[in-house]
């Protein structure tokens, strides 16, 4: 990075300005000297605001989530119960029989319980599926943009389209997924999948769900509605394509020409030289993927519209699910009960921490890569 070199450009202004300016300009100059002070203050203040914003973000979330953090601790991360209401029910003994004392049924009261595991599961699985789908396509497209497109003189147009895709708001993808992708899946792909694979025993977990109520487990077919984990993941994949592609493209561009020409001269095929490029840029590419992951994990609107919004952990990609971001969009507005609200803020905090970690690692990888390469 060039941080160090820029420092030398800025000598103290007072020393150089004295001799070279005419006396007529001195009052104006005095104004500008005051200007220096004001500008310095404004710049420092604005920059300090950045720090203040981050502190406020973490501080406010931490403060508001505190009741839930105190109540649930780290166990919040692995608890799968998410229930905002109290349940009063007959107490059952180990054998499952209702406990009766003094001729009356003894009742137990279950307090509201909140655990983040279902939404962490939903976020992790949907982001992973999205990455599996998006990464090969993005890397392929990035290679195409760097190696092929310039020769065809379409690099500019293709880059523009991909950057425009990155600027399309997630709402647009959500609406498209809701009205085009989900119905298409429900009407065409779903029935076809059921016909073809529905009876395959090894894939039963995909098409049937187990519902356990009062100790009785029932297996029932999952309705293929197109509003499920898979749809949510696919729309995420589409949404992270542009960012992974454009960052990968930038990373691959920094691979020295000599590197490519060298491998070709040694008799490597086109693909082998591409592999060499990918190897050379691997840490930057990993950064690009992490950026995609960060975006996928924090994405809200499009996912909320098609993921089905059920806080459950189901192995099937066709079951409705919920992500950290979508549970916030769904429940935060009406969550007036103290602990419920605090639990949601706890989730917001986890989401924040997660995306910060992904982003920081990603930037380290991409920037580290770019800094080492010449001419970036």
């Amino acid at each position: 990075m060039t941080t160090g070199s820029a420092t030398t450009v800025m000598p103290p202004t007072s020393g150089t300005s004295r001799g070279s300016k005419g006396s007529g300009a001195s009052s104006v100059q005095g104004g500008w000297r005051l200007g220096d002070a004001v500008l310095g203050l404004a710049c420092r203040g604005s920059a300090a605001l950045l720090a203040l914003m981050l502190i406020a973000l973490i501080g406010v979330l931490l403060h508001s989530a505190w009741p839930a953090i105190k109540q649930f601790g780290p166990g919040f991360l692995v608890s799968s119960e998410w229930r905002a209401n109290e349940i009063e029910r007959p107490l059952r003994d180990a054998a499952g029989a209702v406990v009766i004392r003094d001729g009356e049924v003894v009742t137990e009261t279950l307090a509201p319980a909140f655990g983040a595991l279902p939404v962490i599961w939903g976020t992790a699985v949907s982001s992973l599926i999205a990455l599996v789908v998006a990464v090969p396509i993005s890397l392929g497209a990035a290679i195409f943009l760097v190696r092929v497109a310039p020769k065809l003189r379409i690099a500019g147009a293709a880059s523009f389209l991909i950057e425009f895709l990155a600027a399309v708001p997630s709402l647009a993808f959500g609406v498209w997924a809701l009205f085009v992708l989900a119905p298409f899946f429900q009407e065409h792909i779903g029935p076809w999948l059921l016909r073809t694979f529905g009876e395959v025993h090894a894939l039963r977990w995909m098409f049937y769900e187990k519902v356990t109520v009062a100790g009785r487990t029932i297996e029932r077919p999952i309705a293929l509605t197109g509003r499920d984990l898979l749809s949510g993941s696919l729309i995420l994949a589409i949404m992270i394509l542009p960012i992974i592609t454009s960052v990968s493209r930038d990373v691959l561009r920094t691979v020295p020409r000599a590197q490519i020409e060298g491998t070709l001269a040694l008799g490597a095929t086109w693909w082998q030289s591409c592999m060499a490029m990918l190897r050379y840029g691997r840490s930057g590419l990993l950064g690009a993927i992490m950026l995609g992951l960060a975006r996928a994990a924090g994405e809200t609107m499009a996912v909320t519209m098609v993921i089905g919004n059920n806080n459950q952990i189901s192995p099937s990609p066709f079951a409705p699910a919920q992500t950290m971001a979508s549970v916030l969009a769904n429940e935060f507005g009406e969550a007036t009960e103290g602990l419920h609200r605090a639990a949601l803020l706890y989730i917001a905090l986890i989401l924040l921490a997660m995306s910060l970690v992904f982003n920081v690692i990603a930037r380290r990888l991409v920037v580290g890569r770019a800094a080492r390469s010449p001419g970036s």
Partner: protein
Amino acid sequence: MRSIAEIRRRSISTMMFVLCAAGAALIVSLLLLVSGYLVWIGISSLSWEFLTAVPTGDVSNPGGMRHAIDGTIILVALASAVGVPVGVLAGVYLSEYSSEHVATGTLRFVADVLTGVPSIVVGILGYELVVVPVSRMTQSAVSFSGYAGAAALAFIMIPIVARTTEEMLRLVPRTYREGSLALGATRAQTIFRVVLPGAFGGIATGVMLAMGRIAGETAPLLFTALGSRLLTHNPAEPFPSLTLQIYTYATGPYPEQKRLAWAGLLVLLALLFVVNLSIRIVASRHARTRVGA
């Protein structure tokens, strides 16, 4: 004669070439698919009424989205009024005050971190930091407001503008600054008359990009501006935006409102397309003049 291994090597290469091209083609066709569908349905739903009328409350004849268009313009303007100057000044600090390298290094990192905050989290912060305290102070039931929405959008905007400004200022040759300072200009003069004008095109691009980004945001507004069916220009009230209205209509059951949602998306996307295209033009012109200079 070529060996089997060689043929295999070549054919793998050809296959991968095709796959790479297919990847690029897939992305482009996805874009065309999504936006083509949008334009197709959107245009048939777009009307003069859409741009000028406000919601009627009658679901079979829902009126237009004038209130939401106005709302988005006002929200973006308010957010930019805070976000652009603060962002640019912070960017100037990061680039021009790099002698304070511990601070600039840390703050650059902070800005990067802030650009990665999920927008729904920003919305929740807006609720906790603006809506709740204002409710308490003004003794009103809930103070969802355009100001809260604009504050959330500014939160997203500031780090983006700061980082782009910094990047763009770095592109201004060092010799310009040295020359200006050597002629006796103060630091403020140098920054305002030499450095900032030199990077103007790039900064303008970054600002427009950031404005486009916040115009398309929904999640930060859910719990801050809240949305409104009414035409209002008073940001102290719950405030409409194009994105919130599209979300409400799209997730609702009324077919006529869904048509409005498509039309709204078309308007939003057309806006972003124009912004992106002009950025492209400005940026390439900027690049050319820099090379020329």
